[in-house]
């Protein structure tokens, strides 16, 4: 620990050596002494000292001090309630005051059994109340959104929720109103709490004031089993605990990986598990008998038929991946295709450029960056929500955040990210990028974030990192479009012994097509291939057109039902463990059986032990210089407006089948720049017709002040059939 100043502090007559300036609550904890807290939560920013639960005696100061606000100074002598009458009196007083108007709700309250207020009252509080007046009452519970219920009577006004809403997710939707004893928590302007991270306040709340409606009255802490796993909804891979009761998922909590998610989960990861019990789920293996009819088939038969078809197809086989498979599954399919059948044809949803590994860094390093550059058309919060939180915390810590894109601090046309990266790398930049270029070159700790779909797998950002000669304090974060895109691509390439991959063109006539996952099944290219292929094996959770063309339809498992490894956007392999049982046989079992038929030894079960460890980040790869590829900027056009679409976080199969998340589904909206709206006589709320080469759709207009003039943005769900340039006018 070179360079760290250690000081001596004494807590309850125990001498400790701790780094200067460390929080006293942590220092005490390190010595095994508990200082009870409510409002103290280091992830929410500097301590506020509001609840007064942590009152301790500091030698030399007559009044008790809030230990959470104290930092270790040399020679500090602290006494907690264990050794100081002053501190004990303070602690009892505070607990008495908190409980004064707290309702006797414990049997009804969902927090019971895992409630810090219950625990601390048992340990340090009064046995009975001296308050014989009526307690203050509120209407309760109040839903503040379909996901969260607020019970104002139980609230102890620790302000954790408002501090999260203001200072972490920065949506400013939870506020405290009124003053003093009349204070209560509300939403801003009484609007429902609609945000990407709203669910975190349920975990933060130390009492049962903010509770999850989805978990309401489902189970008690002693009735659930917690399984550690990693979320499979986006490429971040937040670490989670899945609480299950009687074989069903009842809730998802954070498992706090300090480098990846810091204890926060987005609402999709937290609530979108309704697809596990959806009625329209494919529940057993099926074989096609007629044009669109299916009959059940046994595991052995399915494996046999598939192996037969694959052998017949030989190297005319292609695999369409979804990017949601585990590494083990992808590896199995890759080996079947490449080793056993000699085919190098695959559709990989993401394929990172190999040079990116040279700047591998944990997401937590973003917070320490001096400059963060975000390039790409795809809003980071929709694709990898945790990264958005890290960027905000970097900004609060003093970093400069430069976003380049249609809604960025530097506004550009859609599709310009590669060109901008090339310009910044070469150093010859237009006026609007001059400041950005200067800051990037001056800073020693840089974070580059690439949130764009490009077929080169992020080569422009690798070239930029190479040109800037980024060192150890910097990192490059390439955001894939799928949760395990990185892992799948790595597994595929590893099985190929260095051979190139050829994506099959849509008109190819294949001997066999393996469609893995619902995302691949929704791809129009895959549909075209499926219509022409001689044999199609599809593994999916729900029916689709591609599934209808399959010869063998295998019930897919959700990420909560399988064991396997996933690699997140950092390049960190993490383990998923099954929380609940899914279909009787997993995909891996089927693949192992198929492999066996083809003479390949594939493990039907991943070979790692179940554990709740926080996976480490592998070391960086060797730096390989990446030349800059000159890329022209997309040309503006006089005709119409440029359309940019994005996949909203709250879209997809799991969200659609979770009723409590229905309110988060994207609106049928088109975002317009102010100037374009004014030119068309359009205001926010008007219904407009958006059209391009033949197809048209009616959407509601919304003016986005930050959108570049000449660009419109529509969520991908509502932009079907629209081309790159569109016309927007009132009907």
């Amino acid at each position: 620990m070179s360079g760290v100043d250690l000081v001596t502090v004494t807590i309850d007559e125990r001498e400790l050596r701790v780094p200067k300036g460390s929080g006293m609550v942590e220092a005490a904890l390190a010595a095994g002494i508990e200082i009870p807290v409510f409002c103290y939560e280091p992830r929410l920013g500097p301590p506020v000292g509001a609840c007064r639960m942590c009152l301790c005696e500091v030698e030399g100061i007559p009044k008790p001090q809030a230990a959470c606000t104290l930092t270790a100074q040399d020679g500090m002598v602290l006494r907690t309630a264990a050794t100081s009458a002053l501190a004990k009196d303070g602690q009892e007083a505070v607990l008495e005051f908190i409980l004064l108007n707290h309702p006797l709700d414990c049997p009804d309250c969902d927090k019971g059994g895992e409630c810090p207020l219950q625990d601390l009252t048992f340990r340090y509080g009064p046995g009975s109340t001296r308050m014989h007046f009526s307690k203050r009452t509120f209407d309760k519970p109040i839903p503040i959104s379909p996901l969260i219920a607020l019970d104002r009577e139980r609230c102890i006004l620790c302000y954790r929720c408002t501090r999260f809403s203001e200072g972490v997710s920065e949506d400013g939707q939870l506020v405290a109103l009124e003053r003093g004893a009349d204070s209560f928590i509300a939403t801003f302007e009484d609007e429902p709490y609609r945000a990407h991270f709203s669910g975190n306040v349920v975990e933060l709340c130390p009492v049962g004031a903010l509770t999850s409606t989805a978990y309401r009255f489902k189970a008690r802490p002693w009735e659930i089993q917690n399984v550690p796993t990693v979320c499979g909804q986006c490429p971040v891979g937040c670490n989670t605990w899945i609480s299950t009761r009687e074989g069903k998922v009842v809730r998802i909590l954070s498992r706090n990986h300090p480098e990846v998610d810091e204890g926060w989960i987005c609402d999709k990861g937290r609530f979108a598990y309704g697809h596990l019990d959806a009625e329209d789920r494919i529940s057993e293996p099926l074989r096609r008998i007629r044009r669109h009819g299916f009959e059940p088939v046994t595991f052995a038969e399915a494996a046999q038929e598939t192996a037969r078809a694959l052998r017949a197809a030989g190297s005319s086989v292609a695999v369409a991946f979804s990017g949601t498979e585990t590494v083990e599954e992808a590896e199995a399919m890759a080996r079947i295709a490449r080793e056993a059948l000699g085919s190098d044809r695959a559709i990989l949803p993401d394929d990172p450029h190999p040079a990116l590994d040279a700047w591998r860094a944990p997401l937590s390093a973003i917070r320490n960056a001096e400059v963060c550059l975000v390039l790409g058309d795809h809003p980071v919060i929709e694709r990898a929500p945790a990264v958005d939180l890290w960027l905000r915390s970097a900004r609060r810590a003093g970093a400069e955040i430069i976003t380049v894109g249609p809604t960025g601090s530097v506004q550009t046309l859609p599709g310009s990210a590669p060109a901008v990266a090339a310009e910044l790398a070469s150093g010859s930049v237009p006026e609007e990028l001059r400041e950005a270029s200067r800051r990037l070159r001056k800073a020693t700790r840089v974070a580059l974030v690439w949130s764009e779909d490009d077929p080169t797998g992020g080569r422009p950002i690798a070239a930029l990192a190479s040109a800037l000669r980024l060192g150890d304090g910097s990192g490059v974060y390439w955001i894939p479009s799928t949760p395990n895109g990185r892992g799948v691509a790595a597994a595929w390439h590893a099985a190929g012994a260095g051979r190139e991959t050829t994506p099959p063109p849509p008109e190819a006539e294949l001997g066999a097509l393996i469609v893995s996952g619902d995302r691949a099944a929704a791809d129009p290219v895959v549909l075209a291939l499926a219509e022409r292929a001689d044999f199609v094996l599809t593994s999916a959770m729900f029916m689709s057109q591609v599934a209808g063309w399959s010869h063998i339809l295998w019930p897919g498992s959700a990420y909560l039902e399988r064991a396997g490894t996933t690699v997140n956007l950092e390049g960190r392999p993490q383990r998923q463990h099954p929380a609940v049982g899914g279909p009787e046989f997993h995909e891996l079992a089927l693949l192992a059986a198929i492999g066996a038929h083809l003479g390949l030894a594939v493990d039907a079960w991943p070979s790692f032990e179940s554990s709740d460890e926080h996976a480490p980040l592998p070391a960086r790869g060797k730096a390989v210089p990446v030349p800059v590829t000159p890329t022209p900027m997309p040309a503006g056009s006089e005709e119409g407006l440029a359309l940019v679409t994005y996949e909203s976080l709250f879209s997809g199969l799991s969200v659609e089948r979770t009723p409590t998340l229905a309110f988060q589904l994207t609106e049928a909206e088109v975002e317009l720049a102010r100037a374009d709206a004014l030119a068309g006589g359009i205001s926010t709320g008007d219904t407009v017709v958006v059209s391009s080469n033949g197809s048209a759709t009616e959407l509601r207009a919304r003016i986005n002040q930050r959108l570049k003039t000449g660009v419109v943005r529509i969520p991908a769900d509502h932009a079907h059939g629209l081309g790159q340039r569109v016309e927007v006018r009132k009907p």
Partner: protein
Amino acid sequence: MSPQPLESLKGFGVTLRSVFKKPITQQYPDFKRPVYPRFRGRHRLHRHDNGLEKCVGCSLCAAACPSDCIRVVPAENDSADRNSPGERYARIYEINMSRCIFCGYCELACPFDAITLGNEFEISEYSRDDLIYTKDMLLEPPVKRVPTADAELYDMPEPVWKTDS
């Protein structure tokens, strides 16, 4: 050991005498010995005077149970058609009598005196499934009755559910 004819005769004497003594066996089921008032037997779920169930489905009984034989699945009360006075009620309440050890911890744990152990012990069944008592069965007063000793003779505090609503 050498044979002891005198001792054997003494033993036979005891046997002979016992043959003619009146047995102290209580012939159950013709004679049913009264149980003490606090005897822990079959459980009962109680209602308030106004008909609402006392049980709010808080699951503390399940937590206290050493044999893990209580299953509680709560649900939200519909204010128009409520089952219990609180925000929640027990939608499913099952006790597996074959596991229950009749310790009475559930009665002690219940904050609302909703569950008590009555005096019925005649609950044998022919199948284990029938021994899983559901909420409806527990809410109903038990069918058979065993005689209970006079409560006046024993020091028994009046349970709250008898005196309070």
